[in-house]
């Protein structure tokens, strides 16, 4: 096998690994798998969210995410789309992802109104290979649009479904 073919295969493997790194990142956030999330991040990773003060370090970011999601009892759905990945060297890469997310906090206890948002955003990230595994090294998220949820409560039951699904409406 020529060196050129070898290099192309390695590039494809690296691109695959980075795409799955981000898939794991999203899955762990939504599943509240905080140890799993931490493993996707470099120890010295930096995080910028919409002009907030920069968060320094993987541990600090996981603590921040737990505060926003777990402590406030949010239910989250994150979907990443259309990755653009560039390999910059044997252990360096950068990329962009579109984000669609759906976040709901507990309803207003007095009025019963729903509280939450649907957002569309853009991630700009860099990645670093550490001991053979790609990790997120810098992370920046800018929302293009954030829509509040309509305040009316959802119906309590799924209607029209096969009997087994009718009771499946979450919460």
């Amino acid at each position: 096998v020529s060196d050129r073919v070898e290099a192309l295969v390695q590039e494809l493997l690296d691109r695959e690994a980075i795409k799955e790194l981000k898939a794991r990142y999203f899955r762990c956030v939504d599943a509240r798998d905080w140890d799993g999330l931490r493993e996707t991040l470099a120890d010295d990773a930096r995080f910028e969210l919409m002009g907030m003060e920069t968060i320094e370090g993987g541990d600090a970011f996981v603590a921040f995410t737990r505060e926003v999601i777990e402590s406030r009892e949010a239910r989250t759905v994150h979907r990443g789309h259309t990755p653009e990945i560039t390999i910059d060297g044997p252990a360096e890469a950068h990329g962009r992802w579109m984000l669609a997310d759906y976040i709901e906090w507990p309803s207003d206890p007095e009025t019963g109104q729903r509280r939450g948002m649907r957002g569309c955003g853009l991630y700009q990230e860099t990645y670093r290979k550490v001991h053979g595994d790609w990790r997120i090294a810098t992370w920046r998220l800018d929302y293009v649009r954030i829509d509040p949820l309509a305040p009316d409560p959802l119906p309590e039951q799924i209607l029209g479904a096969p009997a087994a699904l009718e009771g499946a409406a979450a919460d």
Partner: protein
Amino acid sequence: VTAGLQELLDREAIRQLKARYFALLHAQDWDGFRALFTDDVHAEEEGLPAIDGGDAFVDLVRELLDGTGTWATLHGHMPEITIDGPADAHGSWMLDAYVEWPSDPETGERRGLEGYGRYDETYRKIDGEWRISSLRVTYQRVDPLLPTPLPEEILAPAEAAR
């Protein structure tokens, strides 16, 4: 073929397998759909009884969708695929499901759901073709559709859509 290249080919074949799963389901091509599964596939979906066997699984899906007036759009996202051996692999996919059953004939209210979930699957290569050998669907959340009928026209349409 080097090991790295074979891994990439297998990963791509499995992603194509799952893409066909969604396409054939939407096309209601049941023979094509059946061919995606091993004969001994094991299927579990939250809220439904577990099912063994490709024929039984396809029969159930068909019963739910074919000729029932059900309109289902399923999207798969963010695959994580791991090749475990020359003929074994596992993976997960995120699922967005938008399912609507016929509206209530008396009140006209919509009936359906929007579901956000995940597939956890295993795959096996048989005679050179990857197939789904087990699948489990779990949901992060399931929202019932609001009962109000949708407007019949697109509001504030772009010029091209008028």
